[in-house]
């Protein structure tokens, strides 16, 4: 276990862009649109330019790759890539455009293997094909689903209007239930070539075929003349070890994993389409439901993304200092909450049933009590707003009798926080460390298992404790700082070997580092008492035209929001595009390679060490 203090390099992206244009004069040109960043790359030369961006300019980390449909604006579809240097600095944004009919963009999977799932997602939701992708299957929806739902001209069942608020709600709002309406009536636009016989799920067949399994028994060993075949086992979707509805299709040789294919989408609700129907403000409580363990930091990422857009306008005021202090307080408490949860469940996966998990949960509840008193809810906090936070932290954490048998509590908030941060949590962490860190069973089960080398970790675009466990000191709080992190003193723990034990230790140390940050936050909270925590933004902010990518270091990794506003001044204020770069989703790219060669029992632990949450993976 090593503690790394990375040196953030000063990267001048404009200089890089100039050099890039020099190198590829025909293929690369500036994005001319107002409020947009980066360059547009000719798709014929995309792979070449991307390789150069990675190798010549050092942008080795592909954070996000996503599609946008400019239906009705430019009649083009677009892929947007955000590449970073793992040594820190801002993004190099590059885009490739393709006509809406027959959209095709070359795959970047050979340049950044981390583009794998993201390109599959874009194919699934936008229908952009990626020549060169070895396994271009739908990933969130089922094979045979008709249409690509994120296209602007695709309408969902029970479609009412393009944008919320819906007209029927006020002023003549006699209620009807959606189920009283016909789900498949005139409100759905069917594709012209709808063929009902095609509405069969072929994904299972395709999946099993891709595993190379036939009816014929294959000779695997040959030794002693024993004829064996590989065995396919479905772990999940309903299995406690998968932490939700998630399925791993593994082929086994004996008990050793040969291949592992993650299958997801069971919790898919097309969050991003909902997000485009919503107004900017409407999306805030929806972000709670992504990574439902750490809703506070989800809120923060989205608030940052929209604030970047608002800052393009004239009348924008940044959040007050106190608001930033409270945001960091909440984000770090959330990190502790999440790591306590994930450590507890990692131990559950290892077979230490519920003792470590419940100890951790005890402490987690204390933090949630504070969240409840401040934001109104324990999990779905919905606390951050554009330009600040919902309300200042209350003076007292107290309750009033309302129901029968109610028991009340009354604590001073600052005393509560001080005692928790200075005494209770450090005491607990000492105890937890004694309980686990030197446990021989834990060590034998985790050391040397699920190794992810640093170069692969970067290539797969992994993030968070998974990336840092592999020894890459990449933390958005340091690499591309936001809020008041630059003035706070903390280190970034990294692993050495990149195995499960290292990830486990990284999380343990991150809790300690979070406590260190929180200790610096407390005096700032005292000092700024009474300051306003909210600037005047209101419920229908005018969001200027442009794009923004707001990213935060979520407990599970880098959470990014790619938001596009078409800046319609008169109409409803809705995001044109609202994309989430979900850390759990992209981290799963590394699951297959990590599990290869290990035993079935280890797969459960390896998955546990990635720490996924399906609300965010499936969106």
């Amino acid at each position, binding site marked *: 276990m090593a503690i790394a203090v990375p040196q953030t390099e000063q990267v001048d992206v404009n200089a890089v862009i100039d050099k890039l244009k020099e190198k590829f004069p025909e293929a690369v040109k500036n994005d001319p649109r107002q409020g947009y960043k980066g360059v547009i790359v000719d798709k014929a030369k995309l792979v070449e330019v991307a390789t150069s961006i990675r190798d010549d300019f050092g942008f080795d980390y592909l954070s996000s790759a996503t599609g946008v449909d400019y239906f009705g604006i430019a009649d083009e579809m677009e892929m947007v890539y955000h590449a970073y240097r793992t040594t820190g600095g801002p993004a190099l944004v590059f885009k490739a455009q393709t006509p809406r009919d027959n959209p095709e963009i070359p795959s970047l999977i050979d340049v950044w293997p981390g583009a794998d799932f993201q390109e599959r997602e874009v194919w699934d939701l936008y229908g952009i094909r990626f020549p060169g992708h070895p396994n271009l299957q739908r990933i969130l929806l089922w094979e045979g689903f008709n249409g690509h739902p994120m296209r602007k001209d695709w309408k969902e069942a029970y479609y009412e209007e393009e944008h919320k608020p819906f007209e029927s709600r006020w002023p003549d709002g*006699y209620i009807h239930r959606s189920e009283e309406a016909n789900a498949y009536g005139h409100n759905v636009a069917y594709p012209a070539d709808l063929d009902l016989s095609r509405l069969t799920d072929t994904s299972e067949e395709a999946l099993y075929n891709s595993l190379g399994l036939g009816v014929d028994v294959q000779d695997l060993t040959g030794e002693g003349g024993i004829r064996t075949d590989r065995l396919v086992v479905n772990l999940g979707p309903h299995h406690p070890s998968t932490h939700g509805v998630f399925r791993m299709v593994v082929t086994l040789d004996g008990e050793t994993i040969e291949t592992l294919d993650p299958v997801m989408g069971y919790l898919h609700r097309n969050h991003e389409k909902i997000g485009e129907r*919503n107004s900017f403000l409407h999306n805030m409580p929806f972000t709670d439901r992504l990574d439902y363990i750490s809703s506070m930091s989800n809120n923060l990422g989205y608030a940052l993304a929209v604030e970047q857009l608002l800052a393009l306008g004239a009348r924008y005021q940044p959040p007050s200092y106190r608001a930033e202090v409270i945001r960091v307080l909440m984000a770090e408490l959330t990190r502790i909450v999440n790591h306590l949860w994930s450590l507890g469940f990692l131990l559950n996966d290892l077979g230490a049933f519920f003792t470590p998990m419940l100890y951790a949960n005890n402490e987690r509840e204390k933090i949630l009590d504070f969240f409840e008193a401040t934001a109104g809810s324990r999990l779905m906090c919905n606390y951050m707003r554009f330009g600040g936070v919902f309300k200042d932290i209350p003076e007292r954490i107290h309750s009033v009798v309302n129901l029968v048998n109610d028991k009340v*509590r009354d604590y001073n908030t600052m005393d509560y926080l001080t005692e928790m941060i200075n005494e209770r949590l450090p005491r607990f962490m000492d105890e937890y460390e004694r309980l686990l860190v030197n446990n021989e069973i834990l060590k034998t089960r985790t050391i040397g298992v699920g190794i992810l080398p640093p170069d692969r970790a970067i290539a797969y675009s992994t993030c968070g404790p998974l990336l840092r466990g592999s020894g890459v000191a990449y933390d958005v709080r340091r690499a591309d700082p936001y809020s008041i992190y630059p003035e706070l003193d903390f280190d970034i723990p990294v692993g050495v070997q990149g195995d499960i034990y290292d990830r486990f230790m990284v999380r343990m140390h991150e809790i300690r580092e979070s406590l260190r940050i929180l200790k610096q936050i407390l005096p700032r909270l005292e000092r700024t008492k009474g300051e306003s925590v909210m600037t005047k933004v209101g419920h229908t902010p005018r969001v200027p035209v442009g794009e923004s990518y707001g990213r935060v270091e979520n407990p599970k990794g880098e959470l990014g929001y790619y938001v596009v506003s078409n800046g319609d001044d008169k109409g409803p204020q809705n995001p044109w595009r609202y994309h989430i770069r979900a850390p759990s989703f992209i981290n799963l790219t590394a699951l297959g390679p990590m599990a290869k060669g290990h035993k079935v029992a280890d797969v459960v632990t390896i998955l546990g060490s990635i720490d996924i949450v399906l609300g965010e993976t499936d969106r």
Partner: protein
Amino acid sequence: MTMYGQGILRGLTITLKHLVKTYFNDMRYMGKKYFNQSEFELRQGMKTEGIYTVQYPDEKVAVPERFRFTPFLVVEDADHPERPGHDWCTSCGICAKVCPPQCIWIVRGEDPVTKRPIPEPEAFFIDIDICMNCGYCAEFCPFDAIKMDHDYEMASYDRTTAHIHDKERLSKPFSYWLTIAPTTAHEEAESRGSWEHSDVVKSKKKTSTPATVYKPVSSPAEVMEMLKEAAPKPAATADAVATTEAVATAAAATGPSAEEVLKAERLRKRKEALARKLAKEASGG
């Protein structure tokens, strides 16, 4: 040389300590902690040790003031001197617009004679199944007329009839809001300048009648004090509970037919509203 198994043994002593502490804690308070208020606070606080449980439903953790469950509408108390039972809602529609899942349906009130809109909702529905408890309606209501309730025990057997809350079900007296969230209510009253509804304050300013200050209160502590003095505090809550119960029992007594009648009525009104809208569009276009 370290002995194999040392780490495991050390871990086991910790689990043993937790177990012992739990019993030690029980003996220390001699079971009082399950009945006594102050010990409950201790048990839930930072100093607690061992394993502890809240014995729901024999005991419940009272929720903090800002807790949000489902929305309710504030109406004047039944004993209000000027406008008893009057809605605080002016049917401005902001809550319906900021509602992320769009679960609020408001019918704006109309003067029966002049057909002009009046600041009072004719009907107000919230589909509790769709509500995502985000609290935006309460946050952005300019009249403090819609608030988040603390009553989270609303399980029912039939979602099709029980989960669309109409105005009657949603309305709760102002004194109820004062009981569940004294500090917040006080802050709001301070920003309005009075305990009255802001429209009342405005009209009184116009006619220069001195605002009937309900009870001049300067701090949340005083609100709590006032509530204790104003005697039937539990009664106010009990009343609210009783009325909802009465409604529920009345509905139950008449059986599903009443529900069906209500639903038919709702659908009919909806059809009318749609027809009105279509007519408006036709005349407009």
